[in-house]
């Protein structure tokens, strides 16, 4: 019986060894790590890609924009994904990275329905997030204390929001939540709360989407930058990508992903954008 036991153990170890080395030797593997918004997109695109390229092996992981950028800089993965420009991240040498913008995601402020507010000016929004306005009646709503729920520090959504709504000023210290889903749930159930989430998550009757200066968060307003709260979904490679990686990136920027998959998920195709934004938030019209 003992003999059998040891034999089994040896066989298992041996198989594990083969399995592990098998992974290591597989040069066709493309690992994509980083922003959770990109994870969703890359996973589905990777699955479709496998149908036409059976020999490909695409592994997609989350971990956050910071992880994506530092992993790709270290050369640990082929593609690092990020919601923020590599230039804005300290500790990242953006010159060594190649930037591929794959999609655009809108961000929209949301409030609990009890507040009775549907529109804010950009200044009011800034004053709420810096703690200068503390009651909803100051902006035409009910007499109710404002509870700000921010997003996790350093997350892509927060960086984009702060760079556009709060340039140069600091938000008040407040609750922070990680994921779009949790934020939505909290805003839905807690009176007086305000937060912001990715546009695809905001299609929910239980929460109130805000318009800013009477502009609504719609796809067409984003493409012209009339609605300024949006961010790119970046894919970064370290220097020139290898052949297989380049082929996959080409597929991501190609017709199938850009015209079918991206709108299906609720993001905007990069091709639709009529403006270009750089890492300093300068917006230029395409073609100028």
């Amino acid at each position, binding site marked *: 019986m003992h003999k059998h036991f040891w034999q089994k153990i040896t066989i298992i170890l041996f198989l594990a060894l083969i399995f592990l080395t098998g992974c290591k030797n597989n040069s066709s593997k493309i690992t994509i790590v980083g922003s959770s918004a990109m994870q969703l997109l890359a996973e589905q695109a990777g699955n479709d890609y496998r149908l036409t390229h059976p020999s490909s092996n695409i592994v997609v992981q*989350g971990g956050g924009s910071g992880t994506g950028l530092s992993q790709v800089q270290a050369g640990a993965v082929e593609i690092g994904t990020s919601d923020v420009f590599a230039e804005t991240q*300290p*500790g*990242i040498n953006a010159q060594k990275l190649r930037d591929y913008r794959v999609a655009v995601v809108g961000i929209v402020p949301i409030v609990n329905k009890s507040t009775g507010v549907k529109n804010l000016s950009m200044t009011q929004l800034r004053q709420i997030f810096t703690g200068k306005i503390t009651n909803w009646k100051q902006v035409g709503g009910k007499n109710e204390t404002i509870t700000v729920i921010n997003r*996790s520090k350093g997350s892509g959504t927060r960086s984009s929001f702060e760079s556009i709504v709060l340039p140069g000023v600091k938000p008040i*210290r*407040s*609750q922070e939540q*990680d994921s779009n889903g949790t934020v939505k749930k909290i805003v839905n*159930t807690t009176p007086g709360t305000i937060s912001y989430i990715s546009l695809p998550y905001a299609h929910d009757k239980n929460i109130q989407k805000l318009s800013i200066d009477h502009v609504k968060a719609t796809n067409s307003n984003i493409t012209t930058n009339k609605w300024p709260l949006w961010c790119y979904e970046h894919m970064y490679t370290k220097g020139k990508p290898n052949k297989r990686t380049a082929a996959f990136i080409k597929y991501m920027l190609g017709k199938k992903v850009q015209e079918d998959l991206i709108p299906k998920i609720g993001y905007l195709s990069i091709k639709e954008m009529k403006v270009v934004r750089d890492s300093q938030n300068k917006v230029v019209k395409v073609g100028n």
Partner: protein
Amino acid sequence: MAKNTEDLKQVVDQAIAQQEVPHVKLNKMGPNSVDINRLTKPSKETRQEYWGKGLTYFAIILIIILVVSIIGFVGVHGLATFFGNHVNVFHFLTSTDWDPGDGKNHVGAAAMIVTSFSVTLLAALVATPFAIAVALFMTEYTSQKGAKFLQSVMELLVGIPSVVYGFLGLTIIVPVVRKLFGGTGFGILSATLVLFVMVLPTITSLTVDALKAVPKHFRQASAALGATHWQTIHKVVLRVATPRILTAIIFGMARAFGEALAVQMVIGNAVLMPANLVSPSATLTSQLTSQMGNTVMGTLPNNALWSLALLLLIMALVFNFLVRLVGKKGQK
């Protein structure tokens, strides 16, 4: 080798010559039929011994390497905040200004340290009376069957993943706390209530062991003196079991201190010194889980998180040390 064989044969011959009562078996075999090789080489059992020993040593060495490298890695990165980025250790422990992205003067973990400790202590404080009561019921009052049933209930509570507790807390406890005590419902109180359920089985099952370890003759002696059941429990059983019950509580606290996910979902994650039990705040672990994906390896914000991890590691060691200390006291 040949010489050895000769020697051995000589010894055997000598032994046969010297024996006074002829040994039946040895005689029958004769000196030439003795398999010298088999006797001088390690037997199958000896080889098994070597193998077994080797395997356990290998496993132990692997584990030691693992532990040392974990401590080393967390230590190197955690200390980089102080030696690489020149953050003042005293400032780190006492300041409440947590904004590592803004430079070395904004790395203060006091708010998180205070929150972590208050959540842990409160959870242990609430859970202990319940745990002792349940354990007493299981060991003193109910039948074997009932005890077994309760045991499996406790094991079920241990087996529920922490994210489920967090989700339940977010859906049930937070709104109830908001209705009863105001605020947003996120805060130390909600975290305490979630952790209460999570540490209860840990403390209970260890307390049951503690009560079971009280020798039967203590109870019998107490009964013989005319004490009632409750008097026996109160004056004898609990007194004798105290050190082990304390150990149980410390284990529970260690679990509460290290719990991240469930706490993160209900505490609000605002790095603020808690003003009261319903104001949102953040623990060391909740800050770690919510921030680690958003920092770049090697930068100050990342190193500051490693420092929090180092603090947690040190606290785990302290809890371990406390358990040993209490255990030693109990032996006296």
